[in-house]
């Protein structure tokens, strides 16, 4: 389907509806992806559907054509309180949706990735749909390939290393390129900027008045949506104490919701009185415009996993993200160049098994000293130009031991040739766990599946990051991966037979008994192979990618007859085979990196006669 008007015709607008029923953080990530699409395809007329209380950000984006608010509170709250019957709420819903179904949309992009949102995508007429939707029989379906990946891997809580903003951007741009051809502009404009939003000038001036322009401001977002992701207030206070004591030109502005006022008061009480006049608390006092104005005017934002990191990313304010709790910073960390992520090095049992009663070690592993040292390293980059190692910076501060339990990473946007998207470069010595290794390989497999190319294998694999534990686990993984490949080969062969044999059927209703029995046998065999794939995923976490993807792919086959379904199954298994082959190559590559290498004579330095030391 070609959506682009023919040459010579005046440029027509392409009506695009973006559905984002999740929270403000997801809205901000969606806006960043949309900015890239709008720059490349200016003919996009973007309409943004969001819940009323999270719609403010989209309303402040000048290139968003309209913002449609979903009144979830007014429709749902009365039903939940028992004040209204469901049938009445249904009537309200029908009334609300009526204007949206009147004219078909050229493109509907559902970035909510929720079951509820799939109904709305199913309901609305659209020439092209991306994201979760409903089939004609109203059953759940994903409309496109990237959505399959999100369903199987991202929402399946499997490790992968492509940032969500990059997934959304690639998903939309790929679809646009297929339907509209190559973009008209080169797209080399920055996606983030201080002027991303068109904010209320009064509130922008208020922010300027609140934040003395002679000082440098650091914004701190105190809380997080979940307690498990919240760094303790005493740790925040200690960090700020270091910052204010050692950096006289800085002031701190506190940000947070009204529910965090008690926390803010506690924070201020914990600070030495002499420093308190250098703190300005706006906790509970900011609407979206003031919040965005303050973040835009701040030099730095220090925050846990909150929407504020996405806001700062959009505005180009640099971030130090204290990533504690059950968080996947690689998927939802700050986006752009020069942001820092500080995260625990070791697995936190309370994060892995919530409700187990264990405490969050992650929160104590990340110390105020480590956070301050990371920030001061980042804030003086212009001075040391990153020729200074972060370990040495910690040593100068006398806090080298605080680096033991954490990893520090710096974000960078990579060129397309080296993988594209945001990458978090490790600044500290890391030893890859099997989970992290699987995350890298899964990202590589996804790029191969959906982008058709991959950056050079192992470009992010550093020899020193490969420890004995990983080597042992990869050696163990070799055999089950071999078994998995055989299962997939069998499935390819069976579905090929199913396709060929069923194509001989004269009609789906008229099948001779022998053929029917043969087709039944093949179907049973395929079911058994699926069960085996499932078991492989249960037993070996690194192989779960294949079992989950298999389920999602099979659920989303579109054929209406056995022959087509057989062909689609064969193609899907071939896709899995491609992925399994890549994983094998990665194992071989990783193990080869870990092999001892003979030193050349030229690499030996003679210190004293008889004592040779490798360079």
């Amino acid at each position: 389907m070609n959506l682009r008007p023919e040459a010579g015709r005046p440029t027509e607008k392409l009506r695009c509806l973006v559905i984002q029923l999740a929270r403000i953080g997801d809205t901000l990530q969606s806006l960043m992806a949309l900015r890239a699409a709008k720059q490349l395809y200016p003919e996009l007329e973007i309409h943004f559907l969001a819940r009323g209380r999270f719609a403010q950000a989209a309303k402040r984006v000048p290139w968003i054509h309209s913002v449609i608010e979903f009144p979830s509170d007014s429709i749902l709250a009365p039903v939940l309180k028992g004040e209204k019957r469901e049938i009445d709420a249904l009537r309200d819903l029908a009334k609300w949706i009526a204007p949206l179904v009147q004219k078909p949309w050229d493109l509907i992009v559902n970035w909510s990735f929720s079951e509820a949102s799939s109904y709305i995508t199913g309901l609305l007429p659209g020439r092209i749909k991306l994201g979760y939707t409903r089939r004609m029989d109203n059953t759940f379906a994903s409309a496109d390939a990237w959505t399959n990946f999100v369903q199987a891997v991202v929402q399946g809580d499997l490790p992968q290393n492509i940032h969500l903003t990059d997934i959304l951007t690639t998903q939309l741009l790929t679809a646009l390129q297929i339907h509209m051809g190559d973009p008209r502009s080169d797209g080399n404009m920055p996606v983030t900027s201080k002027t991303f939003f068109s904010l209320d000038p009064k509130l922008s001036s208020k922010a300027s008045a609140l934040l003395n322009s002679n000082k440098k401001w650091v914004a701190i977002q105190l809380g997080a949506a979940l307690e498990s992701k919240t760094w303790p207030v005493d740790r925040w206070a200690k960090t700020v104490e270091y910052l204010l004591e050692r950096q006289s030109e800085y002031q701190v502005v506190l940000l947070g919701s009204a529910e965090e006022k008690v926390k803010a008061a506690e924070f201020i009480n914990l600070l030495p009185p002499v420093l308190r006049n250098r703190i300005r608390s706006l906790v509970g006092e900011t609407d979206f415009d003031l919040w965005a104005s303050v973040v835009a005017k701040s030099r730095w934002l220090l925050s846990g996993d909150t929407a504020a990191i996405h806001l700062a990313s959009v505005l180009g304010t640099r971030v130090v993200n204290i990533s504690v709790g059950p968080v996947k910073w690689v998927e939802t960390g700050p986006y752009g160049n020069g942001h820092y992520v500080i995260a625990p090095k070791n697995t936190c049992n309370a994060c892995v098994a919530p409700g187990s009663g264990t405490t969050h070690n992650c929160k104590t592993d990340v110390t105020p000293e480590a956070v301050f040292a990371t920030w001061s390293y980042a804030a003086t980059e212009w001075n040391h130009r990153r020729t200074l190692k972060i370990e040495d910076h910690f040593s100068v501060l006398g806090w080298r031991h605080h680096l033991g339990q954490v990893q520090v990473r710096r974000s960078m946007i990579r060129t397309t040739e080296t993988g594209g998207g945001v990458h978090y470069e490790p600044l500290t010595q890391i030893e890859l766990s099997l989970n992290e290794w699987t995350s890298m390989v899964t990202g590589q497999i996804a790029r191969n599946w959906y982008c058709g190319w991959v950056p050079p294998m192992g470009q992010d694999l550093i020899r020193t990051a490969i420890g004995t534990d990983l080597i042992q686990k990869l050696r163990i993984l070799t055999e089950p991966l071999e078994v998995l490949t055989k299962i997939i080969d069998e499935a390819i062969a069976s579905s090929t037979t199913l396709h060929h044999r069923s194509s001989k059927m004269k009609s789906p209703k008229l099948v001779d008994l022998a053929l029917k029995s043969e087709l039944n046998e093949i179907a049973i065999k395929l079911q058994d192979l699926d069960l085996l794939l499932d078991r492989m995923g249960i037993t070996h976490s690194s192989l779960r990618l294949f079992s989950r993807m298999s389920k999602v792919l099979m659920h989303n086959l579109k054929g209406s007859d056995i022959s087509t379904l057989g062909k689609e199954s064969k193609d899907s298994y071939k896709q899995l085979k491609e992925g399994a082959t890549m994983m094998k190559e990665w194992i071989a590559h990783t193990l080869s990196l870990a092999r001892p290498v003979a030193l050349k004579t030229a690499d030996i330095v003679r210190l004293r006669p008889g004592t040779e030391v490798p360079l």
Partner: protein
Amino acid sequence: MATDQSRLEGEMNEGPSNEERDVMALLAGFLRALLEEQKPLKEQNESST
């Protein structure tokens, strides 16, 4: 090309198809799913107060 890769373009529908859809069933599903989403939030709020 694998089926999944050929689906990068998204789901395509020629012309409006809502006439053939059971709109009321979809709306009811939407409402029920939204109410389900609210349940954990409600429980979370109740347990924290």
